[in-house]
């Protein structure tokens, strides 16, 4: 009855649990994993996730922090805009493949405006003119054509993924005009582009990932869940899907008995 008082301390809770519940006590009657993401390679994925985290902590995160410290927000935003503008050909191709005429027109307008008025894409006047940025990639196109995502996979260096997403990344890379252009250039340019993308993306996620890590009981599962939810949202072009809305207190077998 100790717990009827809401101001019990952390030590009280731990002590109460230790005294009253054996540490090997598990909810024996529940046999399956109870989570919805298809992750049959979880054991391997967790190892790969730990490897990626080690690389991130040793290299990428410190570099992203230094980048944040030395480049002011305005400068970082310009660099983000520039790199995003370079993604336009990929987005346009996939807009077209998905039959999204309006979004394709939007992408062309954004590219033309930002590359000219926006000084090679460093500025983003297109957004102020009402042409909102959106993303598309070949994996999303595959999803639209009905290709299943497959199991959740943590790929080395690239992180959360699925076979569909990996295939999409390869196609996006192969058809991007910059890939062909950089092939004939100095090796340094190729690496600079790839590294810049990684550092800029990591800097943008510095606070978000720190928050998730601090506030989650299982960082791996948090990232997996967020990745799956975000991808679903991107595929549906930001429109909430009915998949989640089917989950209800009244209809979920595991919940309706406790209310």
């Amino acid at each position, binding site marked *: 009855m100790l*717990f*009827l008082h809401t101001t019990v301390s952390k030590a009280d*809770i731990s002590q109460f*649990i230790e005294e009253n519940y054996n540490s090997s006590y598990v909810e024996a009657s529940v046999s399956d994993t109870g989570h919805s993401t298809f992750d049959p390679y979880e054991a391997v994925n967790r190892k790969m996730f730990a490897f990626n985290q080690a690389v991130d902590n040793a290299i990428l995160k410190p570099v992203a922090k230094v980048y944040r410290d030395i480049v002011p927000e305005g400068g970082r935003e310009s660099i983000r805009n520039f790199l995003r503008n370079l993604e336009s050909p990929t987005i346009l191709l996939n807009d077209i493949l998905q039959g999204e005429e309006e979004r394709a027109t939007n992408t062309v307008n954004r590219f033309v405006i930002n590359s000219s008025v926006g000084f090679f894409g460093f500025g983003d006047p297109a957004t102020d003119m009402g042409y909102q940025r959106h993303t598309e990639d070949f994996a999303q196109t595959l999803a639209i054509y009905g290709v299943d995502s497959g199991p959740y996979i943590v790929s080395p260096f690239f992180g959360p993924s699925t076979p569909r997403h990996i295939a999409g990344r390869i196609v996006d890379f192969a058809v991007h005009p910059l890939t062909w252009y950089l092939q004939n250039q100095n090796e340094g340019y190729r690496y600079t582009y790839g590294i810049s993308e990684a550092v800029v993306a990591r800097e943008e996620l510095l606070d978000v990932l720190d928050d998730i890590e601090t506030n989650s009981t299982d960082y791996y599962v948090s990232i997996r869940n967020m990745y799956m939810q975000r991808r679903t949202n991107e595929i549906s072009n930001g429109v909430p899907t009915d998949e989640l809305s089917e989950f209800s207190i009244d*209809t979920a077998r595991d919940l309706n008995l406790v209310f």
Partner: protein
Amino acid sequence: MLRNINKYLIHSLLLLVIFVSTANGREYCDEAIVFINDVADETLDIINSSELTKNQKKSYLSELLIKNADFEIMGKIMLGKYARKLPDDLKEVYTDLIKKMLTKTIYDRLDNDEEEPDVTYAIVNDSCRTKGSKDREFLVDGDVLKDDSRLASIRWWIIINKDQQYKVIDLTLAGVSLTLQKKDEFTSYLSNKSIPQLISKLSKKFD
């Protein structure tokens, strides 16, 4: 003849039941939108305020969350199929930890957000539908606007709780549902650990 009248009566009754149920759903939905618009307005008043300090904003948002969310239901959803296994003597402390966890999540988010004095946020909630089978759950969909441009979609999952009050039990922002994310975390953890162990872990993290 009698059989036909009976058939007619049954059809009429069925139609009446369907009509009444739909009408109730619509009426509750209207109330749900009013409720959520009030919550959204209060949230935006705090976030957009140029007079409040960051700490005051955090404190007011926390109060708003406590007033309008049902942590008990959220906590049970997060436990998923394990909800029935929650020991009675741990229910209250578990719900309290869920409250602390969600409040801290908002605190941390605000701590990291850079001040954008010239930016104004708005939330436009424009559609609602009932969910489940008992006319007590609703999904209200809308958009978060930043300086009149669409920033992200927002979806509120609302319930009429046992005290007949509208309460928020989930927020899906840009496609990521907070409650369902935690459900995934907790049920994954509970597949090889116990609820007391989970509570112990939560208390070490959030108490």
